[in-house]
């Protein structure tokens, strides 16, 4: 199929303003009489708040308001479990939890005021290790867990706020049929999104009493929702607008300071701005869940997978946030893109007294994929089967089923595996201390809802209203490409309205790799609806049959007598002034099909998911046995995206995800001393820099998906998901040591070489408590 706009890497619609410095981000915005806000945060990981004395701070000149939980409604929010207050109420549960907030005439005054607020705490015993927190005698972090509103039937006990299980077949029977069983426990760490732009918000009350919030967020509708439910304000009185957003990767989906800004703005009647410091981002953000993953894989001697069992424990920190989803989704993906007749996979989401963890590219999948793909290589090594061959043997084909028995039609995993392996020279001779590793990825891209409106302006140009947020990944551009393709108008004549709850219809977040598949579908349907109305109006005006009309270059005309036609400009004007009213194409789309067969599911916190995407990542590494340093010689990242609507954007996601994955695998880690983050800065939290980047082969595979717009599926997250296991597998190939504990630092490699690896005592703790 030949397209005019689809499949073309046109210049992104927002590039020019970003390249000349005029693009506005939250901290570039300013309003008359604006105050600066600052948050006072807990210094204890677990403590009762006995008393807060604001008096000294209130006397400081220039301080306009100080609030604590007592000054605001008792609303709690959270995407799955509504457990989180705006400001700590009764007790604090992590170092960094907001306890009070100040609005003052400038930043310095606000910082000074914070120092003067006196909080008296009564320390409570904290628990930092999720396995300890799961014990029946562990300190309870949320005593009122059972009273919180949950959006799904959560299975809960003690500090376990969610327990999800997937069962198919009979694992005990399956393991009996296996010729080889490999078993291991893996550990992954806290990983921070580290977007370059610190989060922030400005809130104000407009003259009509409406709250207006400017927010660096991935989801204006989620900001609206959290403010509404925590401060008990109706959504009809809340408008959220996002300026340009400097990266998110999941960390800016849920709110951080927005409700606090609103509460301060309500109290002072002035706009209030809060921008998080980089230290606050590292200590009080929403980083990736650390996890402890135990897995067992049963394999026949010819390499066929027969049974799999996993227990995945996710450390969700002091509040659930996206934790139930992370534990549930990570476990859903843990079977992998393979046929496994018997499996039992469980995910636990556990509270600890550390910073709450949340959504970050992959959403539980990087953790479970690390364990799953490592187990496969362990089995391959023992059976002396090529790890690539073992994967290909078991990989899904079109017609196979997902977990939950949805039939899959668009399945490009084998092509991804073959191409990724080839790109790193899979069959070539290896040098000394060099090895190659590969990992498969499965993920989804169809989830929840997007709605869109396509309006034909009076002059025939187009207004596209859709709430999908471009956070740099290029969604605005591809939505415009879709409208351009359906209506045959240049991209420049499309007004993209996407970041305003007043101006765009409801959508869920920029999240779950879903904008191309889910959002693109809605936008395409709305554009087609507008096109049909245009054709109908033209047919009526020209007194011709609709079937005889075509659209080209913003004009509708009769196929066999092209002189007879009307321009979009004419039709726009006619619709607005003479006949029918403005043409508004509309689509409201919810992912509802295909449903899961939930008979093997328990405690799964989602409705249905679809738009399955597949990938494979391979690396060649060289390990220095003296220093333990791992050098990635080259990498390849192959992804089945169905159909690449904007190939350059797709490569951008592949490359960006891969490099974040390298950081996850090798160098990044939020380090704790008890409940305190001890490396809250880029000096000590090492994200990859320019000299670290190996040659990366970005490979686009297109297993056309009929249900996606033009066959397209998503890609936002998978680029990161398989890197850590590919690296671990390559290291095992190079030096024969199995790295089970992320990140893979030089110290751990040296420990491995000296036989000094630490074993996580999974079975002991488990048997004691369950």
């Amino acid at each position, binding site marked *: 199929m030949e397209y005019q706009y689809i499949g073309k890497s046109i210049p992104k619609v927002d590039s020019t303003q970003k390249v000349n*410095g005029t693009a506005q981000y939250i901290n570039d915005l300013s309003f008359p009489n604006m105050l600066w806000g600052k948050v006072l945060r807990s210094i204890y990981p677990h403590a009762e708040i006995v008393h807060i004395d604001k008096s000294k701070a209130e006397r400081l000149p220039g301080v306009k308001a100080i609030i604590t939980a007592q000054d605001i409604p008792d609303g709690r929010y959270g995407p799955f479990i509504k457990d989180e207050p705006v400001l700590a109420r009764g007790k604090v549960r992590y170092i960094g939890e907001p306890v009070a907030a100040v609005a003052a005439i400038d930043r310095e005054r606000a910082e000074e005021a914070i120092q003067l607020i006196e909080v008296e705490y009564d320390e409570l015993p904290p628990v930092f290790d999720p396995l300890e927190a799961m014990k029946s005698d562990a300190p309870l972090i949320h005593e009122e867990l059972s009273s919180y509103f949950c959006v799904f039937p959560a299975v809960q006990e003690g500090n376990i706020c969610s327990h999800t299980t997937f069962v198919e077949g009979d694992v005990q029977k399956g393991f009996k049929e296996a010729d080889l069983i490999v078993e291991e426990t893996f550990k992954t760490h806290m990983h921070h999104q580290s977007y370059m732009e610190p989060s922030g918000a400005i809130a104000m009350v407009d003259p009509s009493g409406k709250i207006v919030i400017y927010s660096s967020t991935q989801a204006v509708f989620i900001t609206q929702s959290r403010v509404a439910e925590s401060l008990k304000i109706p959504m009809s009185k809340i408008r959220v607008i996002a300026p340009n957003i400097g990266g998110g990767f999941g960390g800016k989906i849920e709110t951080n300071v927005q409700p606090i800004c609103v509460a301060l703005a309500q109290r002072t009647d002035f706009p209030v701005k809060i921008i998080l410091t980089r230290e606050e981002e590292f200590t009080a953000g929403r980083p990736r869940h650390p996890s402890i993953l135990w897995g067992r894989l049963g394999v026949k001697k010819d390499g066929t997978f027969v049974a799999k069992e996993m227990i995945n424990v996710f450390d969700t920190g002091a509040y659930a946030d996206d934790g139930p989803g992370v534990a549930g989704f990570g476990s859903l993906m843990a079977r992998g893109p393979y046929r496994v007749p018997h499996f039992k996979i469980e995910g636990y989401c556990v509270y600890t007294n550390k910073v709450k963890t949340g959504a970050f590219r992959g959403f539980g999948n990087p953790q479970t994929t690390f364990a799953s793909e490592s187990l496969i290589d362990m089995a391959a090594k023992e059976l002396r089967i090529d790890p690539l061959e073992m994967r290909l043997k078991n990989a899904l084909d079109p017609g196979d089923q997902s977990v939950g028995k949805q039939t899959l039609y668009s399945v490009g995993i084998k092509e991804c595996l073959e191409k990724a392996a080839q790109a790193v020279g899979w069959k070539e001779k290896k040098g000394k201390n060099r090895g190659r590793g590969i990992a498969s990825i499965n993920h989804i891209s169809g989830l929840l809802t997007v709605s869109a409106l396509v309006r034909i302006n009076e002059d025939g140009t187009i207004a596209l209203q859709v709430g999908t947020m471009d956070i740099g990944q290029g969604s605005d551009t591809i939505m415009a490409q879709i409208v351009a393709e359906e209506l045959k108008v240049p991209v420049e004549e499309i007004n993209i309205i996407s970041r305003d709850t007043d101006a765009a219809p409801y959508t869920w977040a920029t999240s779950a790799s879903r904008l191309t598949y889910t959002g693109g579908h809605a936008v395409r349907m709305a554009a087609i609806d507008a096109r049909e109305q245009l054709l109908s109006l033209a047919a009526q005006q020209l007194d011709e049959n609709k079937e005889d009309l075509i659209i080209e270059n913003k004009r509708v005309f009769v196929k066999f007598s092209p002189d007879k036609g009307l321009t979009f400009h004419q039709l726009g004007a006619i619709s607005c002034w003479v006949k029918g009213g403005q043409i508004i194409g509309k689509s409201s789309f919810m992912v509802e099909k295909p449903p899961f067969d939930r008979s093997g599911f328990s405690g799964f916190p989602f409705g249905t998911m679809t738009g399955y995407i597949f990938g494979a990542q391979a690396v060649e590494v060289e390990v220095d046995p003296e220093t333990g340093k791992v050098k990635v010689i080259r990498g390849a990242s192959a992804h089945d995206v169905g159909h690449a609507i904007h190939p350059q954007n797709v490569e951008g996601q592949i490359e960006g995800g891969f490099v974040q994955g390298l950081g996850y695998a090798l160098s990044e880690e939020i380090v704790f001393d008890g409940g305190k983050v001890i490396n809250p800065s880029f000096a000590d939290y090492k994200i*990859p*820099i320019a000299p670290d980047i190996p040659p990366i082969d970005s490979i686009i595979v297109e297993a056309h998906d009929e249900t996606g717009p033009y066959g397209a599926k998503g890609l936002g997250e998978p680029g990161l998901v398989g890197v850590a296991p590919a690296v671990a597998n390559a290291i095992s190939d190079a030096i024969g040591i199995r790295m089970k504990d992320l990140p893979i630092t030089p110290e751990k490699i040296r420990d491995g070489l000296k036989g000094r690896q630490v074993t996580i005592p999974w079975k002991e703790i488990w048997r004691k408590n369950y």
Partner: protein
Amino acid sequence: MQRSDIQLDINGKTYSISVPSQRTLLEVLREDLGLTGTKEGCAEGECGVCTVLLDGLPVRSCLLLAVDVRGRKIMTIEGVSPKGDLHPLQKAFIEHGAIQCGFCTPGMILSAKAILDQNPFSGEEEIRVGLSGNLCRCTGYVKIFKAVQAAAQR
């Protein structure tokens, strides 16, 4: 608080301002002069997002005091392209997809400009080292390298 009357030469224009002695160049640019193209990412000199050129060399404006740079030539992202026309680096960034969220872009372009101004024939290694002080979290740097190399060849 001690204030000083100073003159700053920014993008070829002279600004006369009165600033407290501890005000950083970044604060002056963004808050006193309304030049918000230069961004704040960490305020502790670790991310490079606040990069400006000082007499042609990249520096971290969050670590410089405004009073210490009077009389020196400062270039911010706003000064890179003469009115209307984009600099070859800016064009290359757009063409090669080197911009995602755009937050690192101003600092990255200025550092790249400094590399190419010093050596228009810079190879990939020089470019990598020259950009090592500018963090990017979105692109993985791959298309940034392509863009800078493409601009070098112009």
